[in-house]
């Protein structure tokens, strides 16, 4: 775990690990790197991780952050887990749509809807 303050909040309910961001803007390379490391540490301890990333209150997201989400998605798959995203603001959803990453990620409007689809 990095020595600096955590950049995420974690809520566990049953087998589902729900992650929230502490920052409204997820742009800074160093922060993004830290977020990835923190999430990696969470899921590596699990057998078939059920990870839900909740984007509530996130206003800006850079392509560097998208890249890290792909890395996390690959990691989850390698652990035979599932990754879902929820509560993505319309403007940020457009970024996923333009980059066609909405085809890769399992995106839901709300956290409840996402939770209901874990197998």
């Amino acid at each position: 775990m990095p020595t600096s303050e955590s950049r995420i909040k974690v809520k566990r309910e049953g087998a589902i690990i729900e992650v929230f961001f502490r920052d409204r803007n997820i742009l800074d390379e160093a922060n993004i790197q830290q977020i990835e490391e923190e999430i990696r540490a969470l899921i590596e301890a699990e057998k078939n991780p059920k990870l839900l990333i909740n984007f509530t209150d996130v206003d800006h997201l850079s392509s560097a952050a998208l890249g890290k989400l792909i890395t996390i998605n690959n990691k989850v798959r390698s652990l035979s887990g599932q990754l879902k995203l929820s509560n993505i603001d319309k403007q940020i959803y457009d970024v996923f749509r333009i980059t066609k990453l909405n085809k890769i990620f399992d995106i839901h409007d709300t956290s409840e809807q996402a939770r209901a689809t874990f197998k």
Partner: protein
Amino acid sequence: MNGQRTTDQHGDAEQQGAIPASKTGVEQVLSAASKPFALETATMHPANSRQDILAVEEAVLSALVRNGYDEASRFAIRLALEEGIVNAFLHGHRGLPNETTLTVHYAVTPDETTLSITDQGPGFNPASVPDPTLDENLELPSGRGLMLMRAYMNGGVHHENGGSTLVMKYLRNGPSAE
């Protein structure tokens, strides 16, 4: 930041004191309507630090707010600026010290915004960047910055100076990002 922000404002009636405070409301509305073409332009020299990048973004965002750009326009321009600056440091300045500065120029009018970012690197061929939206490239962790800039800067994105200068334009009444 190495190099101070230099501001060169033209036609800003308020700054030049052209609207006396004693004017009536009606006259003020008329003055605003007939306000000359307003241009806010500045050149900044950020080094590769989050603090410097934020200073540039905040300067541009403030100019956009003063020129009446809505939230969606500000989102688009800020995203393109972020991607452009980060790309310039990451690729243009690869191997150079973090202190090596970029030259970022912006020009904001009520109708359009032009951004140019010049790095001190050797340049590159934009055609060499693979299309990140092709199925075979969808899972590559990088390569989306340029396409996002092209999607959001609806007035066009091009390179000059052998690829070391990126110029992009946003038209206030142009199409939304597709």
